C-alpha cells in the first residue's frame, strides 16, 4: 500500500503538510518548527525510497486514481519517474530539508512564520511534482505552483522595497515563461492529441509547429533557469530573499533546467539527428546552448567581481555555475552521431563524460552555492550587514562559519579535494576533447571565481577585529547544523566522486541518452516502441 504509492506520496505529504502548518502554528512556535521538520523528513524518506526503487528496478509509472497497463490511453494525472527525475528529486527534497533546519534559528525573530513555512512546503511540492511528472500540462501546473510560492517568499521581507520589487520581477518573468510553456503545450496538443510526454516523444514529427514549440519551451525554461541574457531577475531574487529561501530557490531554478533537459533529450530526443538545411538539430541546439553557456559563465563571473553586496556576489557566481552545467550538456549534444554502418545513434566517449560532468555539477552547484548563501545569511544574522566593504575580522568571533565559508569557497571555485573539483575536472577534460577553447574559457572563469571569493574571505573574515563587531557571537546551533550537513556532504562528494558518479549520476546520464538508444521512457508507457 505505502510502497505502491510512493510517487503520489512524494507530492501529497508536503502538500498536506503545507495546509496543516497554519493549524499547528496555533499550538506554538516550537510545535510548528518540529512539525515542519518532521514533514520534510517524511518527504525525504519517501523520495529516497522512490529513488532507490527507480535505481534498482528501472522506470516507475503512476496513474492517480486508477489502474493502468502499458499500452492503454490514459487522460489522467500521470507520473513517470526515470533516472533523471530521481536525480533531480534528491536535490529538490534535500535543499528544503536543510532550509527548514536553518530557518529554526535564522527566522526566529520574524513574524508571519506560519505563512513562511506553508510557502516553503508548497514550493517543495511544486519542485518534486515538476521533476516527477510525465505529463506536459502537469508540468505547467507545478511550474506555476513553484513560481507563485517562491515569488511570495522572495518578497518575504515586505518592509524592504527592494525585496518586493525583486518578487514582482520574479513573478512577472516566471508567469510569462509559464504562459509560453502553456502555448507550446497547446501547439503540441493540437497536433498529436496527447499531453503525455512519452506519447508525444513517440509521435513527434518535427514539423514547423514543433519547431515553434521547441523554441518557446527552451526560451521560457532558460528564462526561469537564469541563463544570460535572461538572468536579470536572478541576482535580485537571490539577493533579496532570506538566505534559507535562496537555498530552496536554487532548487527551483534547477528544476527549470531539468525542464530544458527533458524537452531536448526526451521530447525531441527522436528528432535530434534530423537535418534542417543540412545541419542536424543536435548541432544547431549545441551551438546555441554552448554560446549561451559561455555568455552565462563570462557575464556571471565578471559581474560577481564588481559587486560589493555579498549575497548579490554569490548570486552572480550562481549564474556562472549554471553556465558550466549547460556548457557540458551543450558540448555533449554536439557529439551525437549516427553510425553509418549499423544505424545506431550514440554519443562519443567524451560526450558521455561531458554529460556526466554536467549532471554531477548540478548537484554540486546546489550544495556549494547553497552553503555560501547560508554563510552569507549567518553573517547577516550576526552582524545585520551585507556589504563586503563594511565587514571585517569576523574569523575571531565566528570560527565555525569561517570554516564553512572556506569549504564553500574552495568547492565553488573547483579546488581539490572538494566536490566542485570533481565535476569541473570532468567538464574540463571532456570539453577539451570536444573543443579546447571551451575548456580554456571554463578554467579561466573558474580561476576568476576563486579570485572573487578569496577577496571576500580576506575582507570579511581576516584582518584586525573591528570595534563595531566586538559583541558579535557565533550563530545558533540549528544554523550551524544546517551548514554542517552541507559541508560534510561537499567534502564526502569531493573525496569519493566515483561513488556518486556511478550510483547517482550514471542513471541520470543514461536516462538522458535513453531516447537515442533504447526508448525505455516511451516503452514504459506504450508497452512497445
Amino acid at each position, binding site marked *: 500500500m505505502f510502497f505502491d504509492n510512493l510517487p503520489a506520496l512524494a507530492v501529497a505529504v508536503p502538500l498536506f503538510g503545507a495546509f496543516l502548518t497554519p493549524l499547528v502554528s496555533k499550538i506554538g512556535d516550537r510545535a510548528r518548527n518540529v512539525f515542519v521538520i518532521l514533514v520534510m523528513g517524511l518527504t525525504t524518506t519517501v523520495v529516497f525510497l522512490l529513488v532507490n526503487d527507480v535505481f534498482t528496478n528501472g522506470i516507475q509509472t503512476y496513474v492517480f486514481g486508477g489502474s493502468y497497463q502499458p499500452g492503454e490511453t490514459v487522460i489522467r494525472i500521470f507520473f513517470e519517474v526515470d533516472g533523471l527525475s530521481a536525480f533531480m528529486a534528491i536535490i529538490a527534497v534535500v535543499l528544503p530539508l536543510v532550509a527548514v533546519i536553518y530557518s529554526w534559528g535564522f527566522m526566529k525573530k520574524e513574524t508571519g512564520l506560519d505563512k513562511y513555512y506553508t510557502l516553503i512546503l508548497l514550493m517543495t511540492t511544486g519542485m518534486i511534482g515538476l521533476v516527477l511528472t510525465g505529463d506536459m500540462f502537469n508540468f505547467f501546473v507545478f511550474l506555476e505552483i513553484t513560481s507563485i510560492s517562491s515569488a511570495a517568499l522572495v*518578497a518575504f521581507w515586505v518592509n524592504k*522595497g*527592494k525585496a518586493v*520589487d525583486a518578487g514582482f520581477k520574479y513573478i*512577472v518573468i516566471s508567469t*510569462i515563461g509559464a504562459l509560453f510553456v502553456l502555448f507550446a503545450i497547446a501547439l503540441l496538443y493540437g497536433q498529436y492529441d496527447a499531453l503525455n510526454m512519452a506519447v508525444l516523444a513517440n509521435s513527434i514529427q518535427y514539423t514547423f509547429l514543433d519547431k515553434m514549440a521547441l523554441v518557446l519551451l527552451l526560451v521560457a525554461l532558460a528564462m526561469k533557469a537564469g541563463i544570460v541574457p535572461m538572468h536579470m531577475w536572478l541576482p535580485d531574487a537571490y539577493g533579496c530573499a532570506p538566505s534559507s529561501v535562496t537555498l530552496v530557490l536554487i532548487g527551483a531554478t534547477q528544476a527549470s533546467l531539468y525542464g530544458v533537459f527533458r524537452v531536448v533529450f526526451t521530447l525531441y530526443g527522436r528528432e535530434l539527428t534530423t537535418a534542417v538545411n543540412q545541419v542536424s538539430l543536435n548541432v544547431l541546439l549545441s551551438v546555441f546552448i554552448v554560446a549561451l553557456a559561455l555568455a552565462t559563465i563570462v557575464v556571471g563571473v565578471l559581474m560577481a567581481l564588481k559587486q560589493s553586496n555579498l549575497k548579490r556576489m554569490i548570486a552572480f557566481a550562481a549564474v556562472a555555475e549554471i553556465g558550466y552545467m549547460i556548457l557540458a550538456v551543450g558540448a555533449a549534444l554536439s557529439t551525437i552521431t549516427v553510425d553509418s554502418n549499423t544505424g545506431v545513434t550514440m554519443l562519443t566517449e567524451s560526450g558521455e563524460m561531458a554529460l556526466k560532468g554536467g549532471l554531477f555539477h548540478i548537484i554540486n552547484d546546489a550544495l556549494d552555492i547553497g552553503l555560501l548563501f547560508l554563510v552569507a545569511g549567518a553573517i547577516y544574522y550576526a552582524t545585520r550587514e551585507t556589504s563586503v566593504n563594511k565587514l571585517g575580522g569576523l574569523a575571531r568571533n565566528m570560527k565555525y562559519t569561517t570554516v564553512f565559508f572556506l569549504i564553500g569557497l574552495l568547492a565553488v571555485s573547483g579546488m581539490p579535494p572538494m566536490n566542485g573539483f570533481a565535476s569541473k575536472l570532468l567538464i574540463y577534460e571532456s570539453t577539451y576533447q570536444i573543443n579546447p577553447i571551451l575548456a580554456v574559457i571554463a578554467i579561466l572563469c573558474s580561476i576568476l571565481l576563486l579570485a572573487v571569493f578569496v577577496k571576500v574571505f580576506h575582507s570579511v573574515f581576516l584582518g584586525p577585529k573591528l570595534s563595531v563587531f566586538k559583541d558579535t557571537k557565533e550563530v545558533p546551533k540549528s544554523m550551524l547544523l544546517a551548514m554542517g550537513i552541507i559541508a560534510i556532504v561537499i567534502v564526502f562528494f569531493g573525496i569519493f566522486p566515483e561513488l556518486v558518479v556511478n550510483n547517482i549520476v550514471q542513471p541520470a546520464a543514461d536516462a538522458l541518452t535513453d531516447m537515442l538508444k533504447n526508448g525505455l521512457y516511451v516503452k514504459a508507457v506504450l508497452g512497445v516502441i
Partner: protein
Amino acid sequence: MIYNIPYLAVAALILVGLYGVVFKRNLIKMVIGVTLIESGVNLFLITLGYRKGSTAPIYTSSPGGLMSLPVPQALTLTSIVIGVAVLALMLSFIVYIYRHYKTLDARKIGGEDE
C-alpha cells in the same frame, strides 16, 4: 478565412500583451499586459477544441452528434484559476511597492542600496 479569426485574435492578444510588459513603465499596465497574454493563450486552447456545429461536452444532457473536445476546456479552467492567483499576488506586490516608493513608475523603484 473566417475560421482563422480566433487565431488572429490569439496572436493580437499575445503581441499586445508582450508590448505592454516590455514597453510600459507603469506597473499596473505591465500586469494588464501579463493578463492579456494569458487570455490569448486561453483563447488558443479553447479554439483548438472547438469543431463547427458541435455542442458542449456534457454527456447527460447532450442531444447527441458532434461534441467539442472537453480536455482543452479543462486545461483552460485550470489555467484561469492559476491566473487569478498570479494576478492577486502581482497586485498585492504593487500595493506594497506603492506604499514604499509612492510611485508606480518602474524606472523609479528598486534603485536604492540596501
